[in-house]
């Protein structure tokens, strides 16, 4: 357990990092959620270890697990949800306005509300060149 749980957290966070480094907005949001899962578990592991005493409910028989990390994680879960919700709605809005879900392109646009084909300056690509046109879309 002392090895398995850290390993699971590492898997969650590593996958989250890889997704956040991707260019599609949705992957970024999902990646952040995965990191949040991992972070919540790691607070528990770091604070209380893998102890399997009784849950901190005083009407059961002790000894009890440490309640403090649990309280902290509870806050973290809720705040994590707030972040995800905000990011999700923001992404939908950004996508509607800009017609792109490419993170880097959103950064590079001169005027994000301007559609890419409305660019006057042909010297300035609306999609960063490293991506190229090989965008395959599936639903």
């Amino acid at each position: 357990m002392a090895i398995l749980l850290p390993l699971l957290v590492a898997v969650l966070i590593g996958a989250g990092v890889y997704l956040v480094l991707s260019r599609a907005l949705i992957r970024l949001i999902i990646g952040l959620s995965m990191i949040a899962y991992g972070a919540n578990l790691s607070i528990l592991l770091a604070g209380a270890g893998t102890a399997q005493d009784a849950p901190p409910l005083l009407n059961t028989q002790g000894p009890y697990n440490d309640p403090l990390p649990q309280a902290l994680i509870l806050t973290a879960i809720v705040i994590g949800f707030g972040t995800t919700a905000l990011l999700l709605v923001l992404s939908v809005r950004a996508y509607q306005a800009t017609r792109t879900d490419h993170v880097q392109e959103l950064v590079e646009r001169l005027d994000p509300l301007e559609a890419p084909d409305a660019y006057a300056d042909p010297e300035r690509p609306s999609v960063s060149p490293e991506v190229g046109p090989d965008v395959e879309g599936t639903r």
Partner: protein
Amino acid sequence: MTGSQLLLLAVALPLLASLVAPVAARVMGAKVGWLLASVFVPTLMLFTDVESVRSGTALEARVDWVSGIGLAFAFRADGFSLLFASIIAAVGLLIFVYAASYLGPGERHGRFFSYLLIFAGAMLGLVLADNLIALFAFWELTSISSFLLIGFWGARKASQDGALKALVITVLGGLALLVAVVLLILIGGDTRLSALDLAAIKASPLFVPLVVLLLIAAFTKSAQIPFYLWLPTAMEAPTPVSAYLHSATMVKAGIVLIAKMGFLFEVAPFSQVVLYVGLATMFWGAYLALRQNDLKALLAYSTISQLGLLTALYGAGHPFAATAHLINHAVFKAALFMAVGIIDHSAGSRDIGALSGLWRKLPFTTVLAVPAALSMAGLPPFGGFISKELFFEEMLHEGTLPTLIAVSGSIMTFAYSLRFLRVFFGRFRCENPGVHEASLPFLAPLIPLSVAVILFGLFPWDATIATWFTDLAAGSLGYEGESLYLWHGLGLGLALSVLTWFSGTALHLIRDHFVAMQTRLTPGWNANTVYYQLLAGLEHLALWLTNFTQGATFATHLRLIWGALALAGLGVASHAIFPRPGPVPLSMAIVGLLIVASVTGVLLARTRFSALIFMGLAGFGSTLVFVLLRAPDLALTQLLIEVVTVILFLSVFRFLPVLKRYSRPAPVALIDGIISLGVAFTVFVALVMVQVPLAPRIKDYFLAFSKELGGGYNVVNVILVDFRGYDTMGEITVLAIVAVTVLALIRLRFKRSQAGHEENRGER
């Protein structure tokens, strides 16, 4: 009032007055300068103790600041400090009177005098400071106040450029000084300049870097090659500032440093380095001064040249001659700058080519400026002759090459001094018809300076002013008090002087040809172009670095941060103690499989929907971990949140972009993969290492008092709503803000640039 109280007041009064000056200027206008000149009285009153200082007892004063780290405003007026402080005070007093007439009615007088007072206080603090840290602080303060004064007419592009250049270069030296001061304190074992352990410093392996840093500081401040280029552009300052800062005082701060730290430079080869840098600067400054057509620019390059002369003399260990010239230069250069200010004011021009014969309209200015200019040229019977002759004699001791440089530099000095004088004599030429003599208050500050120039020359010997002042510094700089004589006897020194006069006159007569030759010899680049290229290069580097590390792409920014994290994990991995893998319960093994499977699913998902499902599964897996680790509240909350999140995703599902696979180029994908693995490894190592239960007293407190104080059996809940209720309130506030923002985003109608996007509008 005792001497030490007076010493503190001498430094503090200008700084305090700088706070009052803006208010006073509102009432009195520019005339406030007359009143503010009185801040120098305490410094001049230090002379009541001059006899004890001469006999070797320095005045000392000390106000502790942070005594634990040896930080104190400690001041010490030995002979040299007192001499220099009195120059600052005397010239400062005259400059304040002069500035009261110089500044027009529309100027911001309060600000001007405030800056000038800060500078004066900083300069007095600098020369009188005994604490090295205080010395550094005052040094920087002179740089900053100089920046403010040069940029006083900040609307002009040239002023901005001049101020910035001065700041960049002198602060560069300030940084060098900071390191040098720290080294001095560490090696020398004391923060007091007068209590440093010289033997330890000289024996230290850091001695050479220390001296180099001190020299950089001194050379930047005193405009030596190759740092001189800030001084000419600093002439954008109002003329009183140029006269004060950039001739008599601030630029000599580096000379002060060299003089005070002379004990460090005595060692070969540093004395030779200082000697030749000084001589080269002396030559080059005079060479460039000859080319100038602006009176003020001529004086600026002349100042560079004279500073080189002083550096050479102090560096080569001739403090007597150096101190004599220090006094002379301060006096004649201040007078000349003031004269230029008057000419500029009344003739409306500083162009040497457009002005001549001004003595007809400016008789008093002419009478006052001519002795100063002749002193600069080194003609008897003026002060400059005496110190120039001493300079020649010392250079003769140094060898042939120094003498050659000294004489050729002096010839050019003589020539540009004559050129300066040309504006007063000859046929009258001036484009401004309203040219007129300055008012008495405007002229008055020149009178004592010109009188001093003559007195220093005519009566230099024993117990009169020049010798008396020069001897004042004898004890502290460690030289024998000598006498100054106008007549040094028939020697090589006199012969060189005579040679200088005749060759200088000849050079002046053929100046046009000489300048034509200079123009031909000028390469396409100079110190200024190098400076601007360096500055532009620095800007490019900064821009590139910023863009690379945090600007260019969002992903790169994250890659750098996470890459560093991954490296950190690798760094600590060798110290990790991995526990023996224990038995894993079947339930946990199943949950582990679930999580790994769902993470794999998320990574491989081709559609939005499948990615969402796998993400939910991963969340469900972490819920089960909470169950297994006896955290029922967490499990419940996580489950609830998971459901809400999925609902949220589904409700905006039809507006979401399809899950495109923006294929990363193979190397990028590889790097991202390595970074992800590295971060995962770091997290793993960290979690293996830190599975230490928190201090039990926190846990025990909550468990013991949950029912009694919070009235609940569920300790986690009691913590959230009671013990840490404010936290939860903050959290609720955050959620409320998120809710409002989400609502606003959903309702917001976007400006549409193209009708073609209508079908994708998200409004209902």
